Each structure stands twice: as structure tokens, then as C-alpha cells.
């Protein structure tokens, strides 16, 4: 069964693979590009950069987003920065080192060839963004500034205040807007993809040829045809209800193509970000991230003595009342070499460990301190403000506490999903003509993503990888005429969608979509969260079965399907989140090891570190849909490490 998955990795030495590929790939000539249509779903860093670049090349692009403008995609919320192996700081960085840090940070569960290519094109991204007018932070001499992020010993992170994602996205959005004005890209705002349309070619192979989408303003179901479909819809972290994702971020496009034959890879790998503002109450709608960049200068601690922690929780003691020698800077203690800048999974688990042991500092006991007093003493308040001012302001607006005066309280939260749609080296899924880019695919981060690497991957895929690799596919398609949306394949897919919507509208039960989504979130956090066991995952599967039944028999959606209907939009997404939850639990249960964002409590070292099992689990676990009531089938892509030596990750020395 393993033979099904051919990653199509080019031959040659690691550093030559991408060059070899580009030298030998097939291209499409300019006259033919105009005759080829490409649908791009999503306008985040990956989607917008891909749509713009494909438009520039001369393809006819149809780009879709669910928001009121492509500029709203959730990439905009990324704060800290973007990695690139520029070595502008002369601190020993190189393409190989960025590659190595990413492979190691991913706990040796990513594909070497993809990660090397990512590191290679990272340098082009910074050049491109600067040329677009992205106002990156600069030194007094006029050159670009850098800072450090977790899992690296060099400063390779480029940033624009605490708004790097915003500035990069606006750069991509401006390139996209330019193509829209030129007519190479047609933009569909407030449109949500509801399914992919496959049409068999003359050999009987089904190929991606279009989509069915819902106009979110009118409720109309519309058909769109193309020669290829690109999914750039981000991750599925909102399966947990509470996450740092935007309210409308969802995994539905991924589920739709999974049900049509794309494989869902490594669903269990979810990243829990260590520095988020803790949960305050039952009606909380989302969790706000405090950038990892804060760990450059902030020190994380909890009280050394349990009685101090208890007094703080009871409101009888303030952090200032705890003397230096009674503070436990547990990351600096456990990981002297990387200190507060250990990777996210390591920092999150360490926070959970301290809080579970009774040292948490908020009333709920689920928080640790992130303290800037030492940095303010060393650098002055002004410098700290220049570096993190907008983050401090955001923290104060939400919590009503001033982080210049008292330490921030933080706790881990779901942030990013490394798992996603399986793609080969060309970023194509197992459905010919259907591609997945950015967070939506599984390809580059293994079991854990390093900070400032999501922006890098999104833009690498969209600007510099897909515009090449998609041509290798489309070069065969130049004789294929445009498709009519009157074809029976479109009618059938649309009919199935309409039936699904009707079924949902007619449940007419007693529960709101949100109430079921929140219950799903509780199950996911409790049983498929930061620490998982065989038993917790089995419990999750039982509970997910029950919640699926509850959803399809007791949800209530007011209003009409053929009009603007936000409850219906949410319901369609929650139905898919339940499916994703099941995939995550199944995958977690299959993987009897701990690695990166997947921590099985049964598998840890005596010091509490993740214990991998390379002999048995050095593969990407890819799940193939086998029908609504059947379990999906596991297909493996074996991971081979030719150029790196696998070891237990060591951030101690």
C-alpha cells in the first residue's frame, strides 16, 4: 500500500534538488497560459502570493475568499516575524542551518527535500517583500534588522514591529490587487468553497476541474470551472473552538478534498503556542496570542514555593512580593542553552507541567508569568516599548493590567496545525490537478513548527514554488479546452451540496451551532490536547461519535439557506471540524510515540521530554477516506534522512 505515495523528490544532492527540478521541469508558453484557468481558494500569504504570481505569469486566475476583502485573511494576525537565511548578522547562519533547525525543530518528521527548498527560497522572499514596499524594521545605518526566535541560535527573523504578518499580507494583497486591475485575476469576495468538482479524463483518471461555492451574501450556490484547483485555506485549529485562529478560520476545504480522494496527513500534529492570554470565562470566543518575540526579552517563571502560588491564586500576594530567589525560571533551569527561546512544544509542555504540579498563578491555576522587569531595567522602558509596544497595549486592553508594571500572565493555546493535506514535492495532492499550499498542506514543519516559519512557508509556496511546479502539471493540459459548468459532474456535486444544506436546515433541533462547537472544543482540549494517552484518545473517539450524532439530530439553524445566513456558514464548518477531530484522535492513537506537537504521556524520557520511536514511526501518516461510516485507511510515506543525523532534540546544552 506504500507504493501509492510517490513524493516525486528529484534526484541529486540535497542542495541541487530544486535547481535540478527547475532545470528539467516542463513549462507552459505564454500564449497557452492565457488559455488555462486556475482556481485559488484563500487569500492568505500562500493564496494571495500564488494568485498574484500566477496572474503575473499570464494564467487566468479565479481567487476566492470568505471575508469581505482578501486583505482580511488570518495571515494578517501573525505578529513576530519571518525567517530567512540571509546571514545579514554574520552570526553563522546559512541555508543549511535554517534547513537543519527546521528539521530538528520538527522533531525529524518532515521531508528533507521540501525543507531544504524552503530554506533555499527564504532569501528570495525578503528581497521580494522589500521590493513591494514592505516596511521591515531597520537599523540606524539603513539596513534590515533581525531578531531571534525559538529553536535557533542565530538572529534570522525579519520583522515589521509586531505586525509582520499584516505587512507581508498587505504586500501580497497589493500584488494581487495589481493583477485584479490588470484582469488576470478575478476576485470573488465573500464566497465559500463547498466542494471540489472532479472530471475524468480520457484515461478515466478523475482530475480537479472546478468547485462549487456559496455566495455568502445571497446564499446562492455557484459553479466555477478551471484546469487546476489550489487549496490555500490554512489550518484546522478551530476544531478546538478556542484557539488563536480567527473566528472564520476553518478546515472545510481540506475535508472536502479529503472526501474526494486527497489524503489527510499527520492530523495529530497540532501546535500549542506557549504564550497566549489565558482563558477568562465561559463566553470567551477566542484566545489572543502574545508573540514569541516577547521571549527575546521576557523571562518566564512561576513561584518556587507552592504556598506562594496558592497565595497568588487567592489574591493575597502579588508577583512583586516574591523575591528573586523564590522564583523558578523553569525554562532557564531546564534548558540552559536555549533558555526562554526553546521551541514552542517544549515551552508549552513545561508550562503545563508546572501548572499541573500546582504552581500556576492565575485564579484558575492555569497561567505562568512572562516578566519584563529585567529587560526594562537593562534596556529602559523606551526600548522595550519600541520593540513590543503594540503587544503590550493589546495585552492591557484585554486584561486591564499594565505589563510594564506587572508581569504578563500567559498559558498555552492551540495556534497552528502542522498536519494537513498530503502533497508531493510539487505541492500536488493525490487528486491530479488539485494542489495544497501554506498551512493547508503538511509538508514542511514535521511534528512542530518553529516560530516565524509559517510566514516563510506561505510565501515560499505562493511566490516561488507553486508558480513553477503547477506548470509541470499544466503543460499536459494545454489542449484541454475550458470546461462548461453545465457538465453533469458539476450538477451532481451541486445537488449533493444542496441536499446536505437542506438536511442541516431541516434538523430544526434545540441547540445552537456554537454550543455544539464549544462542546467539541472541550472534548478536543481535554482528550486530544497537550498531553494524550491511549485511553484519552479512545474516550475522544467515543465522545466524537456522540457529538456527531447530536449535531446532525439536534442543531438549530434559523433563517433561510438561500440568503445571508451566518449560522448556516458556521454549521457547515462545524460538521467538518467533527470529522477533523476524529482524524486527529485516530492519528494520535496510531502514533505510539511522542514527537513535537504530539505528546503521548506513555512515551516520555525520565526527564519528561518527548520520546520518539524512529524504528516504527518514521513516516508521515496519511489517511484515506473510505466512506461516511467506515474508518479511514492509513497510508504511509516513509521518511528517510539522508542528509541529517536523527537524534533526540537537545536544547539543554
Amino acid at each position, binding site marked *: 500500500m506504500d507504493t501509492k505515495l510517490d513524493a516525486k523528490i528529484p534526484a541529486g544532492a540535497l542542495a541541487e534538488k530544486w535547481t535540478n527540478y527547475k532545470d528539467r521541469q516542463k513549462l507552459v508558453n505564454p500564449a497557452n497560459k492565457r488559455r488555462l484557468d486556475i482556481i485559488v481558494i484563500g487569500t492568505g500569504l500562500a493564496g494571495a502570493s500564488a494568485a498574484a504570481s500566477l496572474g503575473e505569469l499570464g494564467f487566468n486566475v479565479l481567487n476566492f475568499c470568505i471575508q469581505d476583502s482578501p486583505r482580511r485573511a488570518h495571515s494578517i494576525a501573525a505578529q513576530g516575524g519571518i525567517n530567512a537565511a540571509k546571514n545579514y548578522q554574520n552570526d553563522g547562519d546559512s541555508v543549511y542551518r535554517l534547513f537543519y533547525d527546521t528539521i530538528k525543530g520538527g522533531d525529524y518528521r518532515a521531508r528533507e527535500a521540501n525543507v531544504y527548498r524552503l530554506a533555499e527560497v527564504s532569501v528570495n522572499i525578503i528581497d521580494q517583500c522589500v521590493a513591494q514596499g514592505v516596511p521591515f524594521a531597520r537599523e540606524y545605518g539603513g539596513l534590515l534588522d533581525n531578531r531571534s526566535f525559538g529553536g535557533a541560535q542565530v538572529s534570522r527573523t525579519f520583522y515589521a514591529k509586531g505586525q509582520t504578518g499584516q505587512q507581508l499580507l498587505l504586500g501580497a494583497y497589493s500584488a494581487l490587487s495589481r493583477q485584479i486591475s490588470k484582469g488576470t485575476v478575478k476576485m470573488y469576495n465573500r464566497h465559500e468553497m463547498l466542494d471540489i468538482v472532479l472530471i475524468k479524463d480520457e484515461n478515466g483518471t478523475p482530475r480537479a476541474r472546478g468547485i462549487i461555492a456559496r455566495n455568502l451574501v445571497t446564499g446562492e450556490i455557484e459553479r466555477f470551472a478551471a484546469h487546476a484547483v489550489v487549496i490555500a485555506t490554512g489550518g484546522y485549529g478551530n476544531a478546538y473552538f478556542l484557539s488563536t485562529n480567527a473566528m472564520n478560520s476553518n478546515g472545510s476545504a481540506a475535508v472536502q478534498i479529503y472526501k474526494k480522494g486527497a489524503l489527510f496527513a499527520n492530523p495529530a500534529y497540532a501546535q500549542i503556542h506557549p504564550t497566549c492570554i489565558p482563558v477568562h470565562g465561559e463566553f470567551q470566543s477566542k484566545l489572543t496570542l502574545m508573540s514569541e518575540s516577547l521571549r527575546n526579552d521576557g523571562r518566564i517563571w512561576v513561584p518556587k514555593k507552592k504556598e506562594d502560588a496558592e497565595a497568588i491564586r487567592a489574591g493575597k500576594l502579588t508577583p512583586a512580593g516574591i523575591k528573586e530567589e523564590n522564583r523558578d525560571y523553569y525554562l532557564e533551569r531546564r534548558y540552559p542553552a536555549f533558555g526562554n527561546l526553546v521551541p514552542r512544544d517544549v515551552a508549552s509542555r513545561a508550562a503545563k507541567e508546572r501548572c499541573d504540579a500546582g504552581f500556576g498563578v492565575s485564579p484558575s491555576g492555569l497561567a505562568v508569568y512572562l516578566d519584563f522587569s529585567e529587560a526594562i531595567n537593562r534596556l529602559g522602558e523606551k526600548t522595550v516599548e519600541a520593540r513590543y509596544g503594540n503587544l503590550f497595549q493589546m495585552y492591557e486592553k484585554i486584561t*486591564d493590567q499594565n505589563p510594564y508594571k506587572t508581569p504578563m500572565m500567559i498559558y498555552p493555546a492551540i495556534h497552528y496545525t502542522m498536519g494537513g493535506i498530503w502533497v508531493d514535492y510539487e505541492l500536488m495532492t493525490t487528486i491530479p490537478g488539485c494542489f495544497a499550499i501554506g498551512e493547508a498542506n503538511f509538508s514542511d514543519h514535521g511534528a512542530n513548527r518553529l516560530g516565524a516559519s509559517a510566514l516563510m512557508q506561505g510565501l515560499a509556496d505562493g511566490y516561488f514554488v507553486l508558480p513553477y511546479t503547477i506548470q509541470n502539471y499544466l503543460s499536459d493540459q494545454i489542449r484541454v479546452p475550458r470546461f462548461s459548468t453545465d457538465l453533469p459532474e458539476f450538477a451532481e456535486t451541486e445537488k449533493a451540496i444542496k441536499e446536505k444544506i437542506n438536511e442541516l436546515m431541516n434538523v430544526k433541533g434545540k441547540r445552537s451551532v456554537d454550543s455544539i462547537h464549544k462542546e467539541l472544543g472541550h472534548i478536543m482540549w481535554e482528550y486530544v490536547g497537550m498531553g494524550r494517552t491511549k485511553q484519552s484518545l479512545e474516550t475522544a473517539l467515543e465522545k466524537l461519535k456522540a457529538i456527531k450524532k447530536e449535531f446532525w439530530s439536534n442543531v438549530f439553524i434559523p433563517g433561510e439557506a438561500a440568503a445571508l445566513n451566518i449560522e448556516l456558514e458556521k454549521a457547515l464548518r462545524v460538521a467538518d471540524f467533527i470529522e477533523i477531530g476524529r482524524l486527529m484522535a485516530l492519528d494520535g492513537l496510531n502514533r505510539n510515540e511522542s514527537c513535537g506537537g504530539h505528546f503521548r504521556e506513555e512515551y516520555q524520557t525520565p526527564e519528561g521530554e518527548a520520546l520518539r520511536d524512529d524504528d516504527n514511526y518514521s513516516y508521515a501518516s496519511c489517511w484515506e477516506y473510505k466512506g461516511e461510516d467506515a474508518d479511514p485507511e492509513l497510508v504511509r510515506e516513509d521518511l528517510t534522512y539522508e542528509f541529517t543525523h536523527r537524534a533526540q532534540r537537545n536544547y539543554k546544552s
Partner: protein
Amino acid sequence: MEKIINITLKIWRQKGPKAKGNFETFKLDGISGDTSFLEMLDILNEKLVNEGKEPVAFDNDCREGICGMCSLYINGHPHGPDNLITTCQLHMRHFNDGDTVTVEPWRSAAFPVIRDLMVDRYAFDKIIQAGGYVSVNTGGVPDANAIPISKKIADEAMDAASCIGCGACVAACKNGSAMLFVSAKVSQLALLPQGKIEAKERAEAMVAKMDELGFGNCTNTRACEQECPKGVSISNIARLNREFLKAKLAN
């Protein structure tokens, strides 16, 4: 200690762009001060859905003040009474027990209401499409450090680039002008050497598009600057006027 309040909401309801709208009044009890304004609306909507009614439609997405999707004219202020934040960052601790809170959509000829509190801001996309970019294709650009830019200029460009495109400036302006929005983009790109080359054409094209789409004129009332959640300065408008004048003179 945690503040708990009871409030009365007067919310604008409107079925569609052409439908006649009206205010509807709701009472909400036991709202915690730590609840965000949009979470308060979530609570209201949950209640409405449980009563079998249609929820209030409002735009929102990131809920951390950066995507620009949320709007709302609250008690006569775009994004509510607090300064330098968006509606999603506004918390109920800014209101008192017994308050009546009036919530309306952005009101501007260029932003038609879609439903209830949701408006169509497609006009902003169109203005950017008219010239809010540097005309470079992907690839073939110089090394990022090839053009040094003074920290002062880079920081000024960053300040202008902070605009989130929410439309509060238009909603705040008695003329419904989009000058702050347009000037922020024009300034960001005119300040940087990469964008300077097309600065005049850009200013002209974006202003022409703005006029065409039905936005009003700027009469220097500064309400836009007051209400901007990102503190974008009206000095950008002065810069836009200079660029625009240069373009006109060159013609």
C-alpha cells in the same frame, strides 16, 4: 474585582441593502466586564437563536484588532468609546450598569448595508486596485539590503502602513471622505524609494477612484484621526495633497 453589568442594547436591524431598517431593543443581564464587546453580541445572538430568532449580523474575524473586518458605530463612535482599538478589542468594563448602548453600522454612501450591522467595503479594494502597489513582479528584484533606507523613513512608512482598512475614518467623517485611508497607502509607498518612482501616478489614480466611488471631500475636521483605531495621522493627508499637487503640476 470583576464588574458585572446589566445593559440595554439598541441595535440597527436591516434585512438587506434596499430594505428599510429600524432599531430593535434588547436587554442583557449579568455581563462581565472582562467580556469583549463582540462576545457580548455572541451572548445576545446565542439567546436569539435559542428563542428561534435570527441573530444580529455583524462582520468580525481575527478578534485581535488587526484584520479590520469588525466595524460598528457604538454610542456615536466608530469602534466605540475607547481610543486606539477596534470593536473586537473593546471590553464591557468601559460601560456601566444600566447603560443603554446604541449600535449602528458604518454609515456612508460608499459602504451600503448588506444586513443589520454588516456593510460592503468593496470600494476600499477598488481604490487599492487603482494603484495602491509597487509595480513589481515576483522574482528578479535586487537584494533586500541593496537599498538602505533610513530608520526614520522606514518607521514613518510603517506608521502609515498600520492602516487596517476598517473604514472607521469614512464612518467618522461628516463628508464620508476616504482621505485618511488613501493617504496612508500613498504615504507609505511615497516615503520608500521602491514606491517613489510611481508616487505621482499613484496619488492621482487613487484619488480619482475615490471620487468616482462616491466618497466625500476632506474638510480638515480631523474626526478620522480621532477615531482611527491604529492612530494613523492626518499628516498623511498633507503628504497625499503634496503628491497630488505635484502630479497635477507635472501634467
